[in-house]
C-alpha cells in the first residue's frame, strides 16, 4: 500500500479494523474522540459492532462481555475516562480475556486539561486497577508505529489472554504523518475454545473473576504472575538510537522519546557521546537492557511529560551503577529539543572532569526544581 497522510487517532482505528476487531465500545473524550468517531462510521459499514455507551463504566463492561463471548473487542479513552474503567479492567484481568485499550493521555490530575501528557504511566504500567495484575503496555512514538503496535496489541492480547494497552499522548493522537496501513486480515474462522459461545454439544465453559477460597485465588495469582514472567522474557521491545558508543543515555517514551531523539542528534553534533533508548514496551519494561547499558554508561537522563514516573523504573534497572537524572514538563507542556539538549549538556558536565568543548545556549525556559530533579 502507498503511504497515506494519517492522523494518529484515525490511523489506530483503521489499524484495529484491519487487525480484525469485531466490536468497539466507547465514550467520547478529547484528545481521542477522532478514534471513536472513525469507528462510528467504519464499523457499521463492515457489519461489525459499534456502540457509543452511556459512560466509560458501561463501555468497558461491554468490552468485557464481548471478549468473554470470544469476540475481538476494544475501547479507547483518555485519562479521566480510563480512571472510570479501572474496575472493569481489573475484572477483565481476573477473567483472563483478551482486550485492547487505547489510552490517549491528557493533563491531570482531575479534569486537568486536554493537552498532551504522560502523567498516567503509573496508572497504566504499575496496574490498571485493583488486585495484582499488569497489562502489557505499548508506547508508540510515530503514526506508523501506532499502526504497527495496534496489530501487535491484538496478537499479544490473544496469545497471553491479557489486556494490552496502547499508551500515547494527545500529540500523537492529533498529529498527521505519512504511514502505511497493513492489508485487511481475514477474520478468524473459529472461536477460541474457552469462549462462552453456547455449551450445546460440548463441556460447559465458565469465565470468572472471583475465587472464594484463598488457596484457589493464590493459585490463580501465581498463574498470572508466571504469565507475566514469560511476557517479561519474550516481549520486551525497544527503539535504540546511537547507543553503540554512547557514554550518556537518554531514556524517554512516546512523544518525549521522539523529541529527545532530536536533542540527541543535536548533542552529537556538539561532540557529546549520547544515545537514546526509547522503550516501546513499558510493561514489560526493558530493565535488563538498561542494566546492561549501565555497565558502561557515565550517566542517564530520563525525559517525561510528567513529574517523574518511568524514572523510578530506570533507577531500579540501573541499580545505582550510574547517576540517573530527570527532566520533565507537566500540565500538557511538551518539552522542546533545546531544553533536553541543555539537560544532556548538564549531565555531561556533571559526570566528567574534562572542561566542555562546546557551548550550549539556553535553556530558553526558566528551570525550577520540579523540572529537573536529582535524587
Amino acid at each position, binding site marked *: 500500500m502507498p*503511504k497515506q497522510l494519517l492522523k494518529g487517532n484515525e490511523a489506530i482505528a483503521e489499524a484495529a479494523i484491519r487487525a480484525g476487531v469485531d466490536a468497539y465500545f466507547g465514550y467520547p473524550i478529547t484528545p481521542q474522540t477522532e478514534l471513536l468517531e472513525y469507528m462510528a462510521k467504519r464499523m457499521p459499514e463492515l457489519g461489525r459492532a459499534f456502540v457509543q455507551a452511556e459512560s466509560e463504566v458501561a463501555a468497558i463492561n461491554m468490552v468485557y462481555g464481548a471478549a468473554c463471548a470470544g469476540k475481538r473487542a476494544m475501547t479507547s479513552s483518555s485519562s479521566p475516562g480510563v480512571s472510570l474503567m479501572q474496575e472493569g479492567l481489573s475484572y477483565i484481568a481476573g477473567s483472563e480475556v483478551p482486550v485492547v485499550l487505547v489510552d490517549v493521555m491528557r493533563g491531570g490530575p482531575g479534569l486537568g486539561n486536554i493537552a498532551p501528557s504522560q502523567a498516567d504511566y503509573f496508572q497504566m504500567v504499575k496496574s490498571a486497577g485493583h488486585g495484582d495484575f499488569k497489562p502489557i503496555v505499548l508506547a508508540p512514538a510515530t503514526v506508523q508505529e501506532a499502526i504497527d503496535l495496534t496489530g501487535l496489541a491484538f496478537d499479544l492480547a490473544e496469545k497471553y489472554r491479557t489486556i494490552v494497552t496502547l499508551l500515547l499522548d494527545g*500529540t500523537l493522537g492529533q498529529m498527521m504523518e505519512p504511514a502505511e496501513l497493513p492489508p485487511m486480515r481475514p477474520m478468524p474462522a473459529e472461536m477460541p475454545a474457552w469462549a462462552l459461545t453456547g455449551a450445546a454439544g460440548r463441556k460447559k465453559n465458565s469465565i470468572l473473576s472471583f475465587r472464594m477460597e484463598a488457596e484457589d485465588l493464590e493459585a490463580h495469582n501465581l498463574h498470572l504472575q508466571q504469565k507475566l514472567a514469560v511476557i517479561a522474557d519474550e516481549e520486551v521491545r525497544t527503539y535504540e538510537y546511537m547507543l553503540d558508543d554512547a557514554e550518556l543515555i537518554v531514556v524517554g517514551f512516546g512523544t518525549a522519546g521522539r523529541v529527545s531523539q532530536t536533542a540527541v542528534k543535536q548533542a552529537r553534533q556538539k561532540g557529546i557521546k549520547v544515545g537514546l533508548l526509547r522503550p516501546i514496551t513499558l510493561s514489560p519494561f526493558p530493565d535488563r537492557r538498561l542494566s546492561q547499558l549501565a555497565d558502561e554508561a557515565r550517566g542517564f537522563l530520563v525525559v517525561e511529560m510528567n513529574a517523574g514516573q518511568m524514572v523510578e523504573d530506570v533507577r531500579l534497572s540501573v541499580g545505582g551503577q550510574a547517576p540517573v537524572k530527570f527532566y520533565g514538563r507537566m500540565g500538557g507542556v511538551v518539552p522542546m529539543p533545546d531544553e533536553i539538549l541543555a539537560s544532556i549538556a548538564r549531565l555531561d558536565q556533571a559526570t566528567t572532569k574534562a572542561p566542555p568543548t562546546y557551548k550550549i545556549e539556553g535553556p530558553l525556559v526558566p528551570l525550577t526544581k520540579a523540572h529537573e530533579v536529582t535524587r
Partner: protein
Amino acid sequence: MQHDVIFCGFGGQGTLFAGQLLAYAAMDAGLHVTWIPSYGPEMRGGTAHCTVIVSDEEIGSPLVRAPSYVLAFNNPSVEKYELLLAPNGVLIHNSSLTSHAITRAEIRVVPIPASDVAAEIGNAKLMNMVMMGALLQCSQMLPFEAIERALEAHMSTRRPELLALNKRALQRGVELAQAQSAGLGVEASA
C-alpha cells in the same frame, strides 16, 4: 534539509488546510513530514495554528520553538510569531489584514496583500493559497507543480471549479513574492 513552518490565523481562514496541503505535497515528493494542529477549547473566531516540518531525514520532535518560516494570516499571529521566528527566519504576512509594526530587524519580512488578491481572483477564501504560493517562492522547499498535484489529489471533488481558482491563487502568491525579492535585490545593491 529541514524546513519548519508555522501556519497561523483565525479559525476559518484555512490555516490547517494550508498546512495539510504542504504535508501532502511533501509526502508525495517522498519526504518526511509531520503536521500537528493546535487543539484545545477553541471557539469561533479564535486562533488556529499548525506546525509542519518537512525533512529529508526522519523527524524527531514534531514541534519547534523557533520556526524558520511563519505564515501569518492575521494581526495576532504576526504579534506572537514575529518574536518566536528563528534568527534570519522568514515572516510572510497577509498585509491586507495586518498592521502590527514589526520590530525585529534581522528577519525577512514578506508582506503579501493576500486577502485583497484573493478577492480579485473571485473568492476571499483563496487567501490561504495566495500565502502558500508566497511560501513556495520564498522557501523553494518544493516545486510549484508538487503543490498543484497535491491540490488535485487531495482537495474535495465537490466543487471542481474551485481547483482552477486555487491554482490561480497559488500562482499569484508566487508572483507577489517574486516581485518582493526583486525589490530586495535592488535595495541590497544600493
